[in-house]
């Protein structure tokens, strides 16, 4: 058996309350590595076309990877996937903290939650044993209260993941929360968990994770830990974390401001890393084995009320700060804490509330419609609306269905500034005049997210008007970044501290005994990329180029201010970018993998779906 893994697929049927374990196929380890790779592979078999994302046939999949829990910087990552209630297609999300190693130590490489319980439960997994506790009395509790309760009831050494009121009330962008501040944020994985009436999953694992060569793995780990702490990027970045990029983002005109109306926010200095460190942060808070923790714990403040929270990260600063017209870091931290406690994805929540603020300011929706005046800059109004969303009250109920749905329901032309791709709210980069970043958002497999491909510096460094090399760059990033999600570790030592990504190759053989070159690892990523494309193709009628679509704002309006004022691409230019991308990927003109490409990648089993439509 290939070592470096937990060992088993654990299938839990919430309807019958029966659990069964079977060894994870060895072939999967070679072809998909783990994490996102196992998620994608299992997704194809387990979730059939026609499945209702909120029905019992949908499955919530969770998988650590071979690098999870290793003594290399930042190995505490867990990948999750399900058919998304927000987009109707492939949905996934990645969560830090300490849960992934615990699952692995419990002997699990893939957790499948299927069916639905009649009554709310907490699923308790202790090594191989699965039991259920009645969660009715705390079904509506906040995420923090639930995790605290379970730590007290079970023991502080247990790892807990929970959903909050947002998921319970069917918000399509509800997240799964863990370790008081880590989330599987996007695509509504929390909503799927709630649909199965699972309030929490508690895990304790005490087994060794077997390694091919322990001493060599340890030696590689010691070398890497040492190296990452000596990177110049480490010293500059670590005190501040991801907020470090705020001044750069605003000065380059890529910081989403007031519902992506522009990319520059006056007062961005009040949102930057040093300001956050001075006004919010109390301690660093790190995932498993992380030498460079991005996590910052501290208190948000709004009108004298304090709220402890982890963050806010750049994304939350963008979507809950500049995008809402708020430039007070303490208020942003407070709103981040609100989202965390309610179990809302801060990116989607900030995006959809910003849309409602623009609707209010432009007169499409009144204070009566919305429940209150929703001006940009009004943090109290934002907080109140987050609560309305999480509890399904008033207009919050409509917003809780996502910005695409809300704009469709309201109409009146508000769809023009509903900032989503494929029904997933766009994250923190204003990309209308950045061709590689625009392409990244259009082709990201889950919708408007930046995690697969972050190409903003590439656009700025090589020219925003220059289209050459952009598709190549996006494709390369879409293979390298999600590779970490398949390996089960964090990309920040590379992305943020400047470690050479190829230095990760040195671990695969001592951990698993399998040899991969860097290019062979990227081939696994290409396989996974094509598989997730085919998954969405199978589930979404008409899926293809039409879904790789920018919001109208991005091809109709330029920014009012900033370095790219007045500029945007045309529909023809977007099509040009997509044409280049599809050609390089070996996809049809409609953006579907050809049978040849699928066969080449060992995805022949997907080919009938490609050819019969």
């Amino acid at each position, binding site marked *: 058996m290939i070592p470096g893994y937990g060992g088993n697929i654990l299938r839990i049927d919430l309807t019958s309350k029966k659990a069964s374990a079977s060894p994870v196929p060895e072939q999967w380890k070679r072809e998909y590595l783990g994490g996102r790779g196992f998620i994608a592979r299992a997704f194809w078999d387990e979730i059939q076309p026609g499945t209702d994302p909120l029905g019992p046939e949908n499955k919530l999949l969770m998988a650590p990877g071979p690098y999870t829990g290793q003594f290399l910087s930042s190995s505490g990552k867990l990948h999750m996937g399900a058919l998304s209630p927000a987009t109707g297609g492939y949905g996934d999300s990645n969560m830090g903290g300490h849960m992934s190693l615990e699952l692995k130590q419990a002997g699990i490489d893939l957790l499948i939650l299927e069916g639905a319980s009649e009554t709310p439960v907490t699923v308790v997994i202790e090594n191989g044993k699965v039991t259920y506790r009645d969660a009715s009395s705390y079904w509506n509790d906040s995420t923090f209260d639930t995790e605290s309760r379970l730590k007290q009831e079970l023991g502080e050494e247990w790892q807990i993941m929970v959903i909050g009121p947002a998921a319970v009330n069917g918000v399509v962008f509800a997240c799964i929360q863990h370790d008081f501040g880590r989330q599987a944020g996007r695509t509504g994985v929390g909503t799927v968990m709630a649909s199965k009436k699972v309030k929490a999953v508690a895990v304790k694992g005490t087994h060794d994770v077997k390694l091919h060569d322990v001493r060599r793995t340890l030696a590689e780990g010691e070398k890497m830990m040492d190296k990452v702490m000596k990177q110049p990027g480490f010293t500059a*970045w670590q005190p501040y974390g991801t907020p470090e990029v*705020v001044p750069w983002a605003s000065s380059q005109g890529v910081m989403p401001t007031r519902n992506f109306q522009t990319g520059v926010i006056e007062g961005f200095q009040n949102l930057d890393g040093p300001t956050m460190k001075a006004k919010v942060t109390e301690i660093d808070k790190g995932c498993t084995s992380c030498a460079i923790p991005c996590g910052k714990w501290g208190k948000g403040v709004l009108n004298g009320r304090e709220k402890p929270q982890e963050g806010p990260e750049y994304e939350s600063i963008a979507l809950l700060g500049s995008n809402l017209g708020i430039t007070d870091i303490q208020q942003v931290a407070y709103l981040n804490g609100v989202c965390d406690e309610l179990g809302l994805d801060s990116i989607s929540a900030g995006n959809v509330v910003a849309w409602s603020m623009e609707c209010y300011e432009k007169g499409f929706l009144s204070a009566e419609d919305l429940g209150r005046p929703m001006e940009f800059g009004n943090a109290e109004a934002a907080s109140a609306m987050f609560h309305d969303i999480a509890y399904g009250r008033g207009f919050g109920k409509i917003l809780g269905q996502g910005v695409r749905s809300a704009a469709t329901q309201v109409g009146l032309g508000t769809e023009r500034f509903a900032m989503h791709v494929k029904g997933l709210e766009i994250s923190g980069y204003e990309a209308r005049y950045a061709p590689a970043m625009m392409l990244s958002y259009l082709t990201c497999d889950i919708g408007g997210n930046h995690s697969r491909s972050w190409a903003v510096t590439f656009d700025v460094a090589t020219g925003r008007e220059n289209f050459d090399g952009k598709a190549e760059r996006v494709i390369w990033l879409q293979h390298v970044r999600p590779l970490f999600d398949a390996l089960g570790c964090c990309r920040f030592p590379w992305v*943020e501290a400047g470690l050479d990504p190829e230095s990760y190759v040195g671990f695969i053989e001592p951990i698993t005994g399998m040899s991969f070159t860097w290019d062979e690892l990227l081939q696994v990523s290409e396989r996974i990329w094509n598989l997730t494309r085919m998954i969405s193709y199978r589930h979404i009628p008409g899926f293809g180029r039409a879904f790789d679509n920018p919001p109208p704002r991005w091809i109709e309006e330029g920014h009012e201010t900033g370095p790219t004022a007045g500029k945007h691409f045309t529909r023809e230019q977007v099509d040009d970018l997509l044409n280049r991308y599809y050609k390089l990927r070996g996809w049809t003109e409609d953006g579907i993998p050809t049978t040849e490409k699928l066969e080449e990648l060992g995805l022949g089993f997907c080919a009938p779906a490609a050819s019969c439509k």
Partner: protein
Amino acid sequence: MQVTVRLEGHLREFFPKLHEPQTVAFTEPRTVAEIIEAVGMAASLPSSVLCNKQRVERDHMPADGDELVLLSPLAGG
């Protein structure tokens, strides 16, 4: 007077000349912004600049023999 300029992080791949520290010589004091432009990069492109390991603004004027390190924008995730 002269200063050395080094580039760290992923911007290095777009500026291969700066893989090795460059020496920039000038006859009168220059701002950090001017020095960055002198090595062929837009002054706003690096996310921050260290002068002798201390963070400085673009209008800082280095002294003879100072070492500048230009840091690449580090992704917000």
